[in-house]
């Protein structure tokens, strides 16, 4: 099920995040022994993938941090979450509640 603004994405507990000093980070999936590089803003999204925040509230958080139009933030957030879902780093699509 595609992720929408109502989705409440949740990261898999097995995924290790490794933050870097410049704000970027690596997500490491021990099941596939694969590391994924993500940007600073993507790391913020990842930190909010707790199953409690929906995408709209994630975008609220980003909007308060970055001087970027909300529409672009929402588009980029959905794209990032779709990629994480495709890589099976999220627990489930978490559509709706």
């Amino acid at each position, binding site marked *: 099920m595609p992720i929408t603004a109502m989705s409440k994405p949740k990261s898999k507990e097995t995924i*290790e995040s*490794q933050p*870097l*000093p*410049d*704000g*970027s*980070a*690596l997500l*490491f999936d*021990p099941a596939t*022994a694969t*590391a*994924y*590089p*993500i*940007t*600073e803003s993507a790391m913020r999204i990842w930190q909010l993938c707790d199953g409690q925040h929906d995408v709209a509230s994630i975008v609220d958080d980003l909007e308060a941090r970055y001087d970027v139009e909300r529409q672009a933030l929402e588009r980029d957030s959905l794209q990032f979450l779709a990629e994480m879902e495709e890589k099976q780093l999220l627990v489930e699509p978490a559509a709706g509640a």
Partner: protein
Amino acid sequence: MILEQRYSLFGYRFSFRTNVPRAAELFSRLYAGKADSRGEATVNVYHLLHCPGAAADEQWWIEVPGLASHPKPTLGDCLYSIEASISGDLTRYDHGLHFVHGAVVYAEQGDILLTGNSGAGKTTLSLALAARGLRVGCDDIAVLNPLDGLLQPHVRCFHIDARSAELLAGLGLELPADALRDQFVTPLDLGMPEPPPARLRFVFLLEPERRQAPSIVPETQAQAASALLMQTGRGRFSDLEGVRAIARLTGAAHCFRLWSGDLASTAGAVLKLVRQAI
């Protein structure tokens, strides 16, 4: 007469046997300071033999672990194959080391790692930087100490083809003619017999695509770590400890992506950036 030399590289102990004094001399130059004085049997043995009375295409022979004795066209080909086998066997040997694929260059402003696929230009660029006064530790493999983040270069011979030799000569890099003839230029030939551990301050990811002028753009430390992990397709980087070790390495560095232009301009651009970054 068979000459035997014993070496130990990061705990990988091997013997090199040859009836060619020139080959023994070149290997002793390459592995200066790595002689293994223990009397115990080594893990592997590498042979290089010259049979002057044989047919022209069967005068030079090598035997390496896992491969039966076979001829090579020239001494240079024998040296290349044996040295490559030793380095390959070193990285496959189970000694718990973390290998990083790249060239290590020492600069006053901080040490540099040039990484990228084979053929991306690590060797030539590192030697071009040597022509500009920097020192080169290795052009292919270094061992990462996950505890202190230091990179220890694994010395290999620099394989410099005729075109690269011409380009480097144009930059003023003087290399011994006999070493170039056998395509076996060692770090000693560049005034660096035993490269010290490097503490990285700069990581350059070399793109295979060449451009008219060099282009260097900042890269995130995570992207640099990911690229290094992909470059190191084997060894101990497939676990979390390895990922953390690499992340610490790039996390201490300024990271860039580099598209090379002509050699002189590219080396100049790298140097300029390194000097400006401090």
